[in-house]
């Protein structure tokens, strides 16, 4: 198991991920503290979602280790990592379509957070309220529009009581007003001391929350640090303008 140099809550070392001949993650090292808010940007196909999937346990890395809260979780499936407090949302929402919005969130509260009935009710209602979804609590999730499905992803992940939340493009397609609400919600999570890793294309939303920014390109981390400095990095600009790192 990985020996952690500091109080890093999440420490991924030497992560490779290959799908056949395609190398999607190429030697990623990433560690973060318990109450950090880290943004991840990068062009399409950079490997951002794949990194999130490896961190959350959706599938194992081809090589490398993931440690969470000081223990090696590389071999643990997503279920077990969720129960430890490492919870993700999905870029393409995956609602439980035949269940109501409330039931979707209740599943996470009772299984992810391991809460008993009344506590799970309260947790689920609290998450729905925070994400502004109480009004659609009884709607079958398959009838929700994309915006509400994205909110549901967040509400459901929150009900699992994460200590570290991995967000995958939950801001896509929002109007300015909606984005403002989302930023407020994320700030509330920060006040609750929940660590955040947030992949987002809409950089100006991300910069309102992230204290640290990572830019990925072609399966590698090409810049990591203060958000303003990362955005000014010539390599980052080049990656975004389509030139790719030289």
């Amino acid at each position, binding site marked *: 198991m990985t020996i952690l140099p500091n109080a890093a809550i999440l420490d991924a070392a030497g992560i490779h991920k290959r799908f056949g001949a395609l190398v999607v993650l190429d030697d990623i090292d990433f560690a973060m503290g318990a109450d950090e808010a880290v943004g991840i940007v990068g062009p399409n196909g950079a490997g951002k979602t794949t990194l999130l999937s490896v961190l959350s346990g959706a599938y194992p890395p081809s090589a490398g280790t993931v440690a969470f809260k000081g223990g090696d979780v590389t071999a643990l499936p997503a279920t077990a990592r*969720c129960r430890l407090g490492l919870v993700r949302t999905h870029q393409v929402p995956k609602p439980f379509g*035949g269940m109501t919005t409330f039931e979707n969130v209740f599943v996470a509260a009772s299984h992810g957070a391991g809460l008993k009935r009344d506590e799970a009710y309260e947790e689920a209602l609290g998450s729905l309220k925070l994400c502004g979804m109480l009004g659609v609590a009884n709607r079958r999730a398959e009838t929700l529009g994309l915006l509400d499905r994205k909110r549901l992803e967040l509400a459901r992940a929150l009900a699992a009581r994460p200590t570290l939340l991995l967000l995958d493009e939950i801001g896509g397609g929002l109007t300015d007003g909606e984005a403002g609400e989302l930023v407020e919600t994320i700030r509330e999570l920060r006040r609750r001391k929940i660590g955040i890793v947030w992949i987002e294309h809409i950089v100006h939303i991300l910069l309102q929350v992230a204290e640290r920014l990572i830019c990925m390109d072609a399966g590698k981390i090409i810049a990591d640090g203060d958000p303003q400095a990362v955005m000014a990095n010539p390599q980052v600009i080049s990656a975004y303008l389509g030139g790719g790192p030289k």
Partner: protein
Amino acid sequence: MSAASPVIERGTAASRIAAIAVALIIALLAIAPQFLSAGAVDRMTALFIYVILAAMWNALAGFGGLVSVGQQVFFGLGAYFSIRLADAGLNPFVALFVSAIVVGAVSWPISLFMLRLRNGEFAIGMWVIAALTHLLVNLDRLVQGETGTSLISLNVYDASTRRVAIYWLALASMTALLAVLFGLLRGSTGAAIRAIRDNEDAAASVGVRVTGTKRLLFVLAAFGIGIAGALWLATSITFQPKTYFSVQWTAYMIFMVLVGGIGTFEGAILGALLFFLIETWFGGAGVWYLIGLGATALAFSLLLPRGLWGTLEERFGLRLLPVGYSVRIPVNATLTTGETASPAQTTTSREKA
């Protein structure tokens, strides 16, 4: 939270009346043999067995998303193990239930590899398991191949005592299995089961133990169908492998669940009742009866994909045995929501299960 905080409701006014009605119906059924003819008692026993089959297949496919076309394997094994246990000297009535426990135990190792398969692979794989098991059972000398054998030790009881005893056992089994199933589906495990049905990956990502939960459901369904097979043996005495391991049993289960309403607790029971009536009225029509059954199932899946009960539930918000959750928001509560909800919406929209 404030006084105006939302309340979780599990039942409706209709469901509270339904609960009393269910208790009354079961009480009436328990004393019914005193008033029914011998033939009617036998038919009612068959109905109870159909309800068990429909409820189990519905739990597996409608709630758990595990569509199997090989559930006859557990029906056949329920009968076969009863024969074996009775042959070993066990009281035949006791053998019926010990047999079902053995079926449940056997289903556990089967689940280890079958639950790795998904969707169509699982469905067909179960059929393969059923066909293989049928062949293996044929190898048993006691069964004498397709000649079959009988639960002869049941003959020490006189016909009328036997008939009523089996009736009560079937009624008690049905009631107990429905109660267990209802409790399971209504609890937090039931929510996990439905989440797995809707999206297995998402369920895992919010902490649901996917494989363990599926296994629990699979074993419970095997156990229930095993009881049904054992009871069927008790009513018909003779055991011919090809009758019990026939895919027709699963076809009946699918018919009952599709027509009644897949994924609703009430639907399976309604479907079993309809199947029972159709069989009673048209069962003598031979091949045309089977063609009629097939055509009905086809018509339902095309025109009323949610079945009779599913359609009723959607149209009228009628729920008699609800397993879901409903959030009631007091009128004076402020909604912090993107989509504004009318009070009507929060009270009438219902979930699938």
